[in-house]
């Protein structure tokens, strides 16, 4: 017993923590708040979300009502501060309303692939064996096609329209999502704490819920966020090619296409939808980078 007392002394002298540690997600949040880049891009994303969802609050024009008299006005025109498009519609209004469809067409496929792909990947990673091989080899078939080509092919088969472009992109994103979640699950599953939980008689479902998911969801979510930036570009690309949203609806990719003819008349106006696509995509990318480094516990201090 004296040994134990001595041990206790030694241990408490070796490392005396000052205050109880904050929870994992609390410390992730604190690190995010300290990260200036991530905070900046998050603010930009919130601003974009605000002007798109709250479009009627920031503009009083009708996004579909144009005027022949006011076609292709330059940036800074009184009443149309971002100019007008080829049918005389206010570009600021179009950009605000257009963002709704652009963001929907970008985020929804990623969400679908997150649910489907995440489920399949965790299943493949945890079950392994035949189940895992079957799922992973099926996904490899999809990998044989370049993603944009696959999306175009699916859209071409099913016809154009918003719903079809969302389905096409979801199909494109499921394989990489499965692969990422399979990899992290396989890693987590072979760690000793999963073995220890098995050795203490925990059921498979409990292990997946308490030990695997908590260690796997973070990386999967980070990957999903970075996929959104790809998804914005791909969905805009599909509408640009006329495979997504149909005119006269406002959508950044579609607007880029219809303003294409005006590129010699008003190049700065024609570039604006592209700028929105670029900024949104980059912000999602930077945000996922920030979240990833904030979640890395070993980077702590």
């Amino acid at each position, binding site marked *: 017993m004296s040994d134990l007392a001595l041990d*206790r002394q030694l241990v408490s002298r070796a490392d005396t923590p000052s205050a109880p*540690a904050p929870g994992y997600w609390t410390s992730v949040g604190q690190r995010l708040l300290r990260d200036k880049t991530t905070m900046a891009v998050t603010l930009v994303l919130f601003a974009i979300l605000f002007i798109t969802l709250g479009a009627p609050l920031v503009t009083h024009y009708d996004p579909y009502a144009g005027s022949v008299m006011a076609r292709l006005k330059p940036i800074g025109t009184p009443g149309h501060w971002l100019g007008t498009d080829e049918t005389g519609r206010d570009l600021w209004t179009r950009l605000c309303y257009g963002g709704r469809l652009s963001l929907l067409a970008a985020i929804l496929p990623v969400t679908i692939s997150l649910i489907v792909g995440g489920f399949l990947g965790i299943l493949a990673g945890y079950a392994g064996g035949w189940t895992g091989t079957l799922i992973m080899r099926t996904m490899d078939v999809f990998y044989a096609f370049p993603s944009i080509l696959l999306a175009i092919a699916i859209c071409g088969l099913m016809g154009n329209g918003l719903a079809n472009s969302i389905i096409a992109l979801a199909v494109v994103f499921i394989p990489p999502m499965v692969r990422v979640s399979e990899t992290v699950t396989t890693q987590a599953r072979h760690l*000793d704490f999963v*073995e*220890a939980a098995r*050795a*203490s008689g925990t059921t498979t479902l409990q292990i997946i819920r308490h030990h695997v998911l908590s260690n796997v969801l973070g990386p999967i979510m980070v990957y999903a966020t970075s996929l959104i930036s790809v998804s914005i570009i791909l969905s805009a690309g599909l509408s640009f090619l006329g495979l997504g949203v149909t005119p006269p609806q406002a959508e950044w990719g579609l607007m880029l296409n219809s303003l294409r003819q005006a590129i010699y008349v008003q190049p700065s106006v024609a570039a604006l939808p592209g700028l929105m696509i670029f900024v949104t995509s980059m912000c999602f990318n930077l945000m996922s980078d920030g979240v990833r480094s904030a979640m890395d516990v070993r980077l702590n201090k």
Partner: protein
Amino acid sequence: MSAALRDPRDRGGPAQPLLRVDRLTKHFPVRGGLLNRQVATVQAVDDVSFSVRKGETLGIVGESGCGKSTTARLLMRLIQPDAGEVVFDGDEVGHRQGISVSDMRRQMQMVFQDSYSSLNPRMTMAESIAYAPRMHGLGRREAYERAENLLSRVGLNPLQYARRYPHELSGGQRQRVNIARALALEPRLVILDEAVAALDKSVEAQVLNLLSDLKDSFSLTYLFISHDLNVVEYMSDRVMVMYLGRVVEAGPVESIYRRPRHPYTRALFASKPTLDPDRRTTEMPLTGDPPNPINPPSGCRFRTRCGFAMPVCAASLPPLDVPFEDAADDSHVVACHVPAAQLGHRTGVRHG
């Protein structure tokens, strides 16, 4: 031993071994080729039999890859054995009339070597320790009380450490938490799989003392797996030496350490570092790596590295039940064809 008698879970009394392992075997298939066919087998654990008495510490020693850890995982049923039976206090594990695997796991727990990866990085120390009892139906409050109690039993102040995460603790502290977690289900047998191997020497000594204390106060039985001969000598009552998946020698610790019989055990002990200049190593240490367990040598598996090998060694496998004629204790058994006298004459000077 009297404490073990009072334990209501004790079924057979002190004379009945807590764990009896009979001809335990695990061969891993090696797959390869285009169709993922089985091309070979690794005989990780082959025909291993031993028993662990109530209240004792059985040490298992051997080089890396000799099947020590596989044996531990087989006992916990983390991997399925190919053959052999495991009897826990008179009940065959996994048998219809015996004890179920999950009931066995409540009475048998394991501490792993890697203290970091054996703790969930997203759980606090108290959560990790309380987890298994909670999954077995203990209330939240009681489970956390038990966790805090165990933390102080392993020498960590619960006020300081209960809400810490694994990356905030040192290796020794984490291993103490792992020990506390293994004790959370109130097991009777604890398998310590290289539990102190990754710790530095001063911390190792503290943890070993802690383990001895806990063994007395919880009346535990240990299966102590290590490659460190000094540590095994310090901890164990009996020792079992493994080589390439088979038991080559077993017996009481004094008997084995004083008079090792098997050529492999002798070579192993000859390589043991000592601080006493009068006992400096004179015997040739073992050279080379153990043969590939995919294609183990025929007959005695040690014969390819053994200085005493004879034709009979290649022809047949020596059984383990060969007590030496001059053995003081007939529980000291060895698996070797070469007669004791012959072994003794050649290297007897060192032990004289």
